[in-house]
């Protein structure tokens, strides 16, 4: 029998809340984290809004020396890791550190400092480009810095599969523990893409909502008048642990990871695969591993990014996989509140799914006003909903058609 993997700790830095309690309260109250960008000049851009993390002081989580030497996405990752370790109650000094690994997703790495160095290079000469740009820009800066900080010498991964990075980072960690390569893994994602060049490129790609006059209402997945996603930033880290390891140390178990699968739609670098054939395949494979029938899924945390093509394609795919049950199962997208945090999104959404299971509450899809005949499922519009939840499906579909799905299940001790 395969080793079972449970979740025993949560850490999150989201645009609508820092720490699991604040984040969850915001989700249930339907609070948006979207606002006008004030960090750089957006006057020539069509989009002037983003889901930024405000009131975040990295010094509350990370030593001063480290804060200076890493980029903002690493601040989010290290802060999330610290919260997750504390939440899990694990005493790392008592553990075999060769059996503890890290797996962190990120799409862009530390782009802010790198962008600034490009300007320095052109203005002052390339021999003035700062050496810190290499350790700061590296996508593995979160995973490696967590290891260095806590002396964790187990498997170490940085995963970059676009918007599915966070989900794949957790999924690969799940596999590593199942396969006995580690007993504990800090898994999640971190992203800080609200930087002048990266944000502008997204904006010019015409993927972002232009509702600058009402930022908190801009992201509206499945609404007929949705006009694009809102770029976000943040991070989340979860403690994944082999079941007997968690039981031995009397850890609080939030949930069990029951299934995971990933693939690629092999269609286009930006557009989603319109019929969602490969996305459906991943959903089915995930349910199969979890030994769960589609009608047994109690809630779907959708990818729902608020673009016209994605929300339509995802709805089609859900109907293909879930048939009649597609109309019964509650589906919601917390991107309506926290925007699209790219490589962090799958990880932040996993934290949301875990908290939904724990509290039997489904976070809403906010800003849902105008029904779209092509998106006609139950998207839990505008208000959180109480429901008994035992199984949750999480969808992540990234640009470049990177698909990843995961099934989380309420932990049942009787099966051991």
């Amino acid at each position, binding site marked *: 029998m395969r080793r079972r993997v449970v979740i025993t700790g949560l850490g999150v830095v989201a645009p609508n809340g820092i720490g699991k309690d604040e984040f969850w309260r915001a989700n249930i109250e339907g609070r948006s984290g979207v606002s006008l960008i004030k960090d750089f000049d957006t006057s020539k851009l069509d989009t002037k809004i983003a889901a930024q993390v405000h009131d975040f002081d990295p010094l509350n989580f990370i*030593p*001063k*020396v480290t804060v*200076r030497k890493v980029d903002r996405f690493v601040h989010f990752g290290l802060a999330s890791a610290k919260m997750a370790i504390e939440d899990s109650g694990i005493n790392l000094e008592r553990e075999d550190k060769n059996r503890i690994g890290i797996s962190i997703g990120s799409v862009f790495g530390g782009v802010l400092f790198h962008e600034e160095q490009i300007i320095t290079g052109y203005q002052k000469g390339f*021999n*003035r480009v*700062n*050496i*810190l740009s290499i350790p700061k820009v590296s996508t593995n800066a979160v995973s490696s810095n967590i290891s260095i900080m806590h002396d964790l010498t187990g498997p170490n991964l940085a995963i970059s599969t676009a918007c599915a990075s966070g989900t794949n980072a957790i999924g690969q960690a799940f596999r590593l523990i199942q396969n006995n390569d580690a007993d504990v893994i800090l898994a999640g994602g971190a992203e800080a893409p609200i930087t002048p060049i990266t944000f502008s490129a997204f904006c010019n790609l015409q993927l972002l909502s232009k509702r600058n006059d009402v930022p908190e209402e801009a992201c509206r997945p499945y609404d007929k008048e949705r006009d694009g996603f809102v770029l976000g930033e943040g991070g989340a880290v979860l403690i994944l642990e082999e079941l007997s390891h968690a039981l031995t140390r009397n850890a609080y178990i939030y949930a069990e990871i029951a299934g995971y699968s990933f693939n690629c739609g092999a269609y286009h670098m930006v557009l989603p695969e319109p019929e969602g054939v490969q996305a459906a395949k991943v959903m089915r494979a995930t349910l199969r591993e979890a030994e769960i029938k589609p009608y047994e899924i109690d809630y779907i945390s959708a990818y729902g990014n608020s673009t016209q093509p994605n929300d339509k394609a995802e709805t089609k795919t859900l109907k293909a996989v879930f048939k009649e049950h597609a109309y019964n199962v509650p589906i919601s997208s917390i991107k309506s509140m926290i925007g699209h945090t790219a490589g962090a999104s799958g990880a932040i959404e996993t934290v949301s799914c875990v908290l939904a299971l724990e509290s039997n509450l489904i976070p809403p899809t906010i800003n849902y006003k105008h029904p779209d005949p092509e998106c006609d499922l139950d998207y839990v519009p505008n208000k959180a909903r109480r429901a008994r939840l035992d199984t949750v499906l999480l969808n992540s579909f990234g640009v470049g058609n990177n698909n990843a799905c995961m099934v989380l299940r309420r932990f049942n001790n009787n099966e051991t």
Partner: protein
Amino acid sequence: MKHREIEERVRYILSESLDIPLGQIKLSTLLVDELGLDSYGILEITQEIEEAFDIKLIKESAVFPKLVTVKDAADYVYKSMRNISK
């Protein structure tokens, strides 16, 4: 810039970069043995000094690691600046 002023600024840069109280960084403090600078750390400090004083030292980085104390570093910056102004 006066020699004394350069010494103070070098001490300040080291203090900020390494998060060590300024009082613990004396001119006689040893860069490697006491401040724990490794080869990468030396490069980092070199670059911070370059930015602070608007001078170029890195291509002479072979020289920099041979500096033993905080005073040696400040003297080296002083000399480099005089060479530029000449």
